[in-house]
């Protein structure tokens, strides 16, 4: 059967499915953060805002009685400090990666996810139990938490775990860190989001940016960056061989044989678009630990990788296996994106649900735009700026303009 006579999968099936597989976990993370914020913040409104003391609030602690200008100045100062710390840590990370300390980085990743799952997760679970007055005893609670944490660290640490479990735990980690971020004061959060997206833009696109260096190092060495990265399940394209759906870190000999056999048959009738298109979107986000815990900074990196080819030449396939970047069509999105999108939506949830819907749509639209830009430019692009800027814009517009409109309409029984 001639391959060319078969209808290709529609763009909806191939590209759409890949996009859906990355939008679903982002949406789930945002939804969970919104739920957490709604449950936990209705009961105690401002009792937590003063108790946070982290790197993000070291310059200025917001007080609700300050004037707007003071709050803005304080928020700018806070964000500046935070971005400076993140930049320093990222450069340190690049240095470590340059000196091939990947083991140390892996252990650090495992340790930071342990901290997040055990302490932040435990805290939030405790708050939930308190708020809902759930009669659970300490033995059960601690045992469940211990189980959850240990399996979570294994899922993040080991690359050969069930995909669903790893993905689930990454979403949970993103949700926990995002909730923790929403506990920051309001002005600081918004200015921090904008500052982080600007930093992301600079770090990925400027020639001296740390993330660009990291990506180039990784490509030149054919290595995987050790980071907390969410990898969507690869979509099995019809025209490519079944052996191509293996994950990048699999080096099984039988896998290579099957890929070769699949591609040898395929090479007899190469379709036109046979070149690999690979693009990266990278970004680093870091979360400051609680100063009382003196926890190390948690690094998150974002890496959106899109595979647009429908078929692969065998030689290229082997080269790609050598690069180790995944010859499958899996999209990878780092955890920092999850976290900052969820922080935006969580903050919007603290005001009203109307802003949540607006910001959610803005973020998804931004993500779609970013992926399209990726397809056009095919080089490292930051994932945060478009979504966050759109999200902040929509939040301001909704809060200032849309709300008045909707409320007036509802009061006069006109609409809604």
């Amino acid at each position, binding site marked *: *059967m001639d*391959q060319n006579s*078969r209808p290709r*999968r529609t763009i909806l*099936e191939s590209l759409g*499915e890949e996009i859906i*597989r990355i939008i679903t976990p982002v949406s789930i993370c945002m939804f969970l953060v919104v739920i957490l914020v709604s449950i936990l913040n209705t009961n105690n409104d401002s009792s*937590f805002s003063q*108790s*946070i003391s982290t790197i993000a609030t070291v310059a200025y602690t917001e007080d609700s009685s300050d004037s707007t200008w003071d709050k803005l100045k304080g928020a700018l100062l806070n964000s500046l400090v935070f971005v400076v710390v993140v930049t320093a840590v990222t450069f340190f990370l690049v240095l470590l990666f340059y000196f091939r300390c990947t083991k140390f980085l892996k252990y650090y990743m495992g340790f930071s996810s342990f901290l997040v799952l055990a*302490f*932040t997760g*435990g*805290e*939030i679970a*405790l*708050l939930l*139990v*308190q708020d809902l007055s759930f*009669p*659970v*005893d*300490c*033995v*059960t*609670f601690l*045992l469940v938490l*211990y*189980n*959850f944490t*240990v*399996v979570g660290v294994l899922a993040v640490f080991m690359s*050969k*775990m*069930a*995909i*669903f*479990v790893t993905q689930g735990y990454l979403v949970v980690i993103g949700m926990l860190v995002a909730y*923790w971020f929403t*506990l920051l004061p309001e002005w600081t959060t918004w200015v921090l989001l904008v500052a982080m997206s600007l930093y992301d833009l600079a770090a990925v696109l400027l020639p001296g940016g740390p993330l660009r260096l990291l990506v180039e190092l990784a490509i030149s060495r054919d290595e995987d960056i050790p980071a907390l990265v969410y990898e969507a*399940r*690869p*979509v*099995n394209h*019809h025209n490519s061989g*079944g*052996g191509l*759906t*293996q*994950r990048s870190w*699999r080096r*099984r000999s*039988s*896998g290579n044989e*099957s890929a070769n056999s*699949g591609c040898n*048959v395929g090479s007899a009738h190469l379709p036109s678009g046979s070149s690999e298109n690979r693009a990266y979107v990278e970004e680093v986000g870091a979360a400051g630990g*609680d100063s*009382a*815990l003196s926890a190390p900074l948690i690094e998150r990196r974002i890496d959106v990788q899109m595979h647009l080819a429908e078929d692969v030449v065998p030689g290229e396939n082997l080269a790609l296996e050598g690069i180790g970047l995944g010859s499958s069509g899996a999209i990878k999105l780092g955890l920092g994106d999850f976290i900052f999108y969820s922080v935006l939506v969580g903050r919007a949830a603290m005001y009203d649900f109307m802003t949540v819907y607006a910001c959610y749509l803005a973020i998804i639209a931004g993500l779609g735009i970013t992926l399209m830009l990726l397809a056009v430019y095919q080089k490292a692009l930051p994932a945060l700026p478009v979504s966050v800027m759109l999200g902040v814009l929509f939040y301001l517009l909704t809060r200032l303009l849309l709300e008045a409109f909707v409320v007036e309409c509802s009061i006069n029984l006109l609409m809604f």
Partner: protein
Amino acid sequence: MERSEEALPDSAGLVLPSSTITANSSANSRGPPQWPTIDGPLGLSEEDSIEYARRFFKFGFLFLPWLWALNCFYFWPVLRHSPSFPHIRPYVVRSAIGFTVFTALLGSWALTFAIGGERLFSHVWDELLMYNFADKYGLTGWI
């Protein structure tokens, strides 16, 4: 579930004959599965799986029933098809039994605690309750 969304490879013979056997019913009629893990060709091979199943089983004894449950979930095709994978199967079955027993014990204790309440335990109930326990030791407010 995402697994069912993966398109089965076309029948033009380009691919391995049963490379994407998933956990749906149409796959069962094809015969024994080739991949022991639930991820299909994205997961482990049979040789690696034995080591993983054994390690998960042994680690589960550190009061980790969730790890046993994960073991069963990950090697679900092993449980479904009895004659295949004779090396992996004992570990997975024992993990399943361990998980059920542990959960039954823990569940009954938790339910007794929750339903019994103060009537059954008197003043100890208050001490064992998680949020009181946390307040006593100052575990909240770290955030």
